[in-house]
């Protein structure tokens, strides 16, 4: 196995792990009082990562069990399904962030000439 192959597997695994952590972080945001869209977003992310990593996990499990795999594990649609789920994750993250921001008061911002006005 070449270095690029190893890096490819590593980066793919790291990507899945980071997406899962993002889901958990979204769930935590909701539990700590952010918008409810984050909760839906979190479950979409976790489901998406689960579907995305199913074929990989199946390949790992195949070394231990001698059994034909169900068709849905080997299905090429798993990529499409996970893509749609993760797309929903990002869109709902945006919605959650915007809705959380809209509930907060507008922060006073320094403008040009504010120092002169204060004097």
């Amino acid at each position, binding site marked *: 196995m070449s270095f690029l192959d190893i890096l490819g597997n590593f980066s793919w695994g790291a990507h899945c792990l980071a997406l899962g952590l993002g889901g958990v*972080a979204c769930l*935590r*945001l909701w539990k700590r009082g952010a918008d409810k869209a984050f909760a839906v977003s979190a479950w979409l992310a976790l489901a998406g990562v689960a579907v995305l990593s199913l074929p990989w996990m199946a390949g790992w499990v195949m070394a231990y069990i001698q059994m034909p795999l169900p068709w849905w594990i080997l299905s090429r649609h798993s990529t499409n399904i996970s893509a749609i789920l993760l*797309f929903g994750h990002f869109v709902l993250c945006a919605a959650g962030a*915007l809705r959380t921001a809209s509930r907060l008061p507008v922060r006073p911002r320094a403008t040009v000439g504010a120092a002169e006005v204060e004097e």
Partner: protein
Amino acid sequence: MERWLLAARRGLRQAASMYLPEWAWFLAGVACMAGLVAWHRRANSRHLVMAAGGLGWSSLVGLPQLYGDLFGYEELSRFADKLFDDATWAGATWNDTGELLVYQCSLIAWPGMAFFALGLWRQGSSLVPKTAQPVES
């Protein structure tokens, strides 16, 4: 026909198929980044800046794929050939330099996602949990 018109037609055809097109991914990433920046403008949190920056990195690294999807990989390959000399691709199993460029970019996208998750996690730490809020009488 105009190049942009052809790209738009290709993008619409992709959207009609089962395959989620790259421009939809890109729009979702940019929308999420905009939401995080809007939140940062109200809450003034550096964790949100980190999360938005991570998404920005992932979107930036996906730009070659976006270009290839919309304008065709032949165009992207021509661009990649101009950008790098043959020694860069020595030992590669791909002949199409555009696809190779997309693959190399996909290898470095994961830190963006990691920073996105880390930023959201740390922003959660700075929020007050519901159970800790005082009960109003």
